[in-house]
């Protein structure tokens, strides 16, 4: 009875450990870090070609469409990075737009394949004053 029970516990423990290892391994391979432009520039050497998300604002006047790609610069005020985006940027992509680009470093530029426009969760339609009324 007792050795048999022990065997079950050991077998169960091994299974559990294997599953945990698998899950944690899968997790660590699919983590996408979120960095500001400064952080991204600073950890460039360390990151290699690992994917991450970089947040900044589009520098006005730098957007340049070349066929299927769009090249532009993003800044967070301190550092500026050059981005080459493969694909079509979303509707609200424009000069000064706050963007999050997902991709990786490719030489000196950041190769992105996904651009998200950051937006506040609070939605404000036009012509309405909040709180204290105007009329």
């Amino acid at each position: 009875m007792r050795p048999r029970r022990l065997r079950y516990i050991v077998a169960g423990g091994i299974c559990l450990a294997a599953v945990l290892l698998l899950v944690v391994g899968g997790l660590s391979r699919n983590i996408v870090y979120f960095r500001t432009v400064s952080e991204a520039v600073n950890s460039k050497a360390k990151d290699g070609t690992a994917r991450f998300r970089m947040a900044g604002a589009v520098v006005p006047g730098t957007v340049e469409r070349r066929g299927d790609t769009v090249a532009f610069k993003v800044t967070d005020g301190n550092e500026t990075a050059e981005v080459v985006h493969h694909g079509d940027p979303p509707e609200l992509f424009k000069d000064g737009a706050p963007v999050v680009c997902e991709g990786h470093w490719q030489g000196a530029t950041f190769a992105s394949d996904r651009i998200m426009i950051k937006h506040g969760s609070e939605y404000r339609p036009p012509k309405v004053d909040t709180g204290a009324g105007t009329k």
Partner: protein
Amino acid sequence: MRAALGSSGLVMGAFAAVLGVLTTALGLARRDRRIMNTGRQFTYVVLAGALIAAGAMEWALLSHDFSLAYVVKNHARATPLLYTVAALWGALEGSILLWALVLAGYLAFTARKFRSRAGDPLVAWALLVGLVVATFFFALMLGPANPFKVVSGVVPQDGLGPNPLLQNHPLMAIHPPMLYLGYVGFTIPFCFAVAALVTGRVGEGWLLETRRATLVAWAFLTAGIVLGAWWSYEVLGWGGYWAWDPVENASFIPWLTATAFLHSVVVQERRGMLRVWNLSLILATFCLTILGTFLTRSGVVNSVHAFTESDIGAWLLVFLGAAAVTGLGLIAWRGDRLRTPGRIDSPISREGAFLANNLLFAGFAFVVLLGTVFPLLAEALRGQQLSVGEPYFDRMTVPIGIALLFFMAVAPALPWRAASGDVLRRRLAGPAWAGALTMAGVAAAGARGVAQVAAFGLAAFALAGIVRVFAVGLAARRRADGGGWFHALAATVAGNRRLYGGLVVHAGVVVVAVALAASMGYTTKREAHLATGERTALAGYHFTYLGAVDHDTGQKRTVKARILVERGGRRLGVYAPALSIFPNSAQAIGTPSVRTGPLRDVYLTLVSSPDETGRITLGVQVGPLVVWLWIGGGIMLLGTAVAAWPGRRAGRRAQRVEVSTRPSPPPAEERLEEAPV
């Protein structure tokens, strides 16, 4: 006026909940049936308070009462009626109010159902726990999430209106209430589980009392999840229906543990085993619904659903911790009584399969939970912002899903206790051949992907097994009674609604699994820049851009692109995906245009409106079998209804009769084990 009415409703509900807790506790301490009965009746007052509060809010919304901050934020004069009513659950405070209302409704229903057993400590404890939960939610509304806050200063003339995403599709009016009916419904089995632990009556009694409540909650949650996926597909315009978004996961994780619970209770009913496991599962399910509310409503995660931010997060976390600690402490305290009398004789048996199914569901829930809360943990502990990519979820959950499909195919054919090789061969050979032939067939037809081929094969395996059980039951019934097929079908199902209802749910799962595998594996999409008159092609379809229509209402500007869809030279019609831009907001809301068909959906999105050169970016996607996701969800609900619908024998006593003495003729499930089939 309405604010005062609503607030008094809240105060009334809160007081009634507290008084109900105290009275019931007093009654329990004195073992006085009459005092306990008075405590029970406080649930009706709680319901009345919640109804008054919710009614006052709806009244305020419908009468444009912009003296209420909630109305200003979530309603505008131009908002259509449906979304005005739905604004009750459009934001944080209102959705907590809805939560409290649903909880009060469930509690009052339970109190009424057990009115003749008011002196039973199990019932009294269960209602007491329920009233404690209600007290918490009313306290939330009297504290940090007050829906009846009045605006300071002058009352505005008009409000902001609901979030644009929330007033784009009628599904928005049904999806959240369904989800809440499911979420909150699990409070009832949780209450009875705690009551069972406190009173020490940890046998099968509490399971039987809450069987239907659990099924009903599960059905609503299933409906809520499916409708949410549908809404995501029809409104968000990215072409998919599930993104492993933290808030989608928040609804899915309790569904997983609840599904595990629905299966493992059967083992406890039949064999008296898995008591601790069942208690833990229902405890986990309840805690996960609170965690889900925390994720959805505290604004800690970035997600399409995180519409609100507030400081109720800390409250919810404390409540979550309290519930988890109480539950685990009770289980530890009752450890000696929870020893199970039976044991699993053979792994190849019904209970063995149920156990495997449960471990898989628990693993599934763990994987999704870890991926969902990991970014929160990382940010809290290491201050790093990160997100867990979708590939993690896909890679981890697909194998678990396929294994679950396998057990779903095999388990209904396994007998209890132990299976002989002979029985297995007789019951599984046919379905297994059906599965193998399907796999070979789809592989020969050029199906790509191991997961897809496995899913199709196992789906056929499972479906054939279900059909077989129905056929055997029908044949036996016809031999016994004679009569037509339809009559025999009705009689067979009525004879064991849990079995046949469950099998119908399984059939729904099969349909969903096939649709998932096909749409995940074989969807093709592309984006194209098109000037007027230009066309693009995808998967045999041709898309011609006919021109754009601009529509400006002052509040938003909508651009519709008219796209002619053709296939093999045949015109299928003109579709108009649109993009709405709200000038003061950084959000562009796309409205996809979907051509739904039984075999494939054609999904059109306007990625960007005409640029300087008049070219649009059009997103086109052809996804096979998508519509079957929703149909499969419907079949699952139908099956649940068959299993849970109160029959003629229903009632407080009949349920017990059903377990102690088997109705005659014996259900087909039993007969399967003995009769030479």
